[in-house]
């Protein structure tokens, strides 16, 4: 048993030698707000960056973060062409409030429903908010956990780095 455990512990290290240093997006089937199936492994933005933001209607910092991003979104899109996917991990208790909430605050993001946290767990999310920046080749190049007022400045800086 100990050998097996050692083997398992060593496996990721061995793999990391061969694995690209940046991870890509796992393939999980989610639904959008219109009921369409979306394969997260195929999220794309014509070679431009993508932000994936995990949030929930019961998470105050998440809503603050995305409300701030919503204010900046048009400028960010103009500068960098970024596309935001706001992936909610609301479970059945609150998932039916997602669409009315999103429409009421007029977020212009693409919303995906991760009702059983399959995608968030595949991405290594522990608690929301958790933001991933994906480059034009589909690689995760930066991520951030939590939200403090002003964090959008760093997101903007990271987006501009990709531009250059």
């Amino acid at each position, binding site marked *: 048993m100990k050998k097996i455990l050692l083997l398992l512990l060593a*496996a*990721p290290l061995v793999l990391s030698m061969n694995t690209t240093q940046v991870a890509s997006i796992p393939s999980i089937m989610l639904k959008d707000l219109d009921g369409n199936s979306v394969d997260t492994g195929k999220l794309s933005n014509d070679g431009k960056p993508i932000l994936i933001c995990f949030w929930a209607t019961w998470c105050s910092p998440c809503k603050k973060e995305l409300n701030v991003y919503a204010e900046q979104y048009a400028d960010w899109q103009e500068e960098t062409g970024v596309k935001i996917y706001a992936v909610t991990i609301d*479970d059945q*208790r*609150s998932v*039916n*409030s997602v669409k009315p909430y999103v429409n009421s605050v007029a977020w212009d993001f693409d919303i995906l429903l991760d009702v059983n946290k399959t995608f968030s767990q595949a991405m*290594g999310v522990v608690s929301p908010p958790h933001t991933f920046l994906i480059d034009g080749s589909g690689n995760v190049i930066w991520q951030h956990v939590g939200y403090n*007022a002003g964090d959008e400045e*760093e997101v903007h800086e990271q987006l501009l780095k990709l531009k250059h």
Partner: protein
Amino acid sequence: MKNSLLISFFSLFVFAAAIAQESPGSSGENSAPKGQLHGNFQVLFQQYSPDSLIGAQVPDAEAALNSFGNFTYNYGNLTAGVRFESYHNAILGFPNRFKGSGIGSRYVRYNNDGLDITVGNFYEQFGTGMALRTYWEPNLGIDNALDGVRIIYRPYQGISLKGVYGQQRLDFDSKIINTEGLVRGGDAEIFMNELIPKLADKDLKVTLGGSFVSKYQAGTTVERDSNIFTLPNNVGATGARLGLIYKNLQFTGEYVTKINDPNADNNYIYKNGQGIFTNLTYSQKGLGITLNAKYVDNMAFRSDRDALLFDAPINFLPAITRQHTYNLAATLYPYATVLNGECGVSGEIFYMFKKDSPLGGKYGTYLSLNAAAVNSLDTSHVGGREELINGYQTNSFFFGKTKYVRDVNLEIRKKISKEWSLTYVHYYFEFNTLVTPVTQDFKGLVYTHIDVADIQYKFRPKHAIRMELQSLMTDQDKGNWVTGLLEYTFSPHWSVAVIDQYNYGNVDEDKRVHYLYGNVGYSKGANRFMIGYGKRRAGIFCIGGVCRAVPASNGIEINITSSF
């Protein structure tokens, strides 16, 4: 033996993938898939000091440590995952049976051309979860994963077929401990507008679904009041659901029935269970409305008929009330579904007053109004042998006489200037602590008003101060509370917060205690460190639709999370 086989299989896969990666060009293909490693860690340490004033519990070891590490490796169509867990011993509030270090989850998954097969531990949800939902919530110590096989097949665009078969995780003692029962289930869902190309652009979008879940647990016989009862080997639940979207309107509905399931929750009666959930929403830019109705009658469904509380649930029945976020409203009187039976309705309106309108001002004003009411079922006493067998008679799908909860809340959020923003929330609860026993100090209906003001002052682009003032007023239970929070954040790395909760209205003057707690947080990228010290009062901690009681404590807390 089964564990060893699975682990060996996992090891074989990851090493095979590693070898394959060493020579990506050996087949002459430069587009060989890249390996991807995702995962996360969490270490949660709590030191406990005695504090008889707040009734703080101190385990023998005076400290506890929960930790886990997830590794998920993807290579082309193959995925393998393993989670190591460690409890030395479990943090208070988690199941105290969790102990030791070992593997808490492991699986391999193959996904290609519409076929998706998982062997090992997996999480799945059928429809709204009333028939089946397995999930992992590490911050609450909940993991009811199935351990077996899952097959998902999508033969055509718009059709999804699922089958699951396995045992269910119950416990952790240096390894996974499953219940004895077997869970088998199938689910089919058709999204008509994806299946039929002609319907793709129609305004009306239709989703149909159905599921069947069966549990096997060796039956036995029991004697009650000189009657011999046979506990069934197999129990089944069947569900049907419908989803409609038409322009700005959306409807979701599911009906699930369960037969022949005497268990510890329902006092071993044989009455059929049934659950109904419906939701109707309307939304347009600036406005959202949602209405819900829920009916649950004898719907506790577990892979072990003798299990209770958080153990081995096959299905998921979340509360219809809103999950609150501010401390006093969220942790003193949170409502949870009464699995044996309840009838509830709720509604919510979200509205944004436009910018430059009289009530919107320069930045707009956000308002939400939410209300929920839940009562007992409309039932009759039956008596005699019939009561032993079926317990009670259900008369209608409407409210019974006993009030379980009333929850009305209004939230107003306003950005006043670039520097200042304000959120105000008012809550009114009527909460039956006989039905949802969140307190030992009062049995009956608690009537309470809660006010919250959350003020943020962002005085420099990356520097902000936030203050929360909360007041809870009630003549019942522990009486009035007030909470103050002061937080300073220096983006993107630092946060410092101090919170004081004061139970100034407790009729017992000795219990008019200040719960003072402070913490410092540091975040960099996907790493987050938090150290806190002070008194935490007993309360109910909720994430999503699930809540767990956490006892009072006094001491140091360290929380480290990392993702990669």
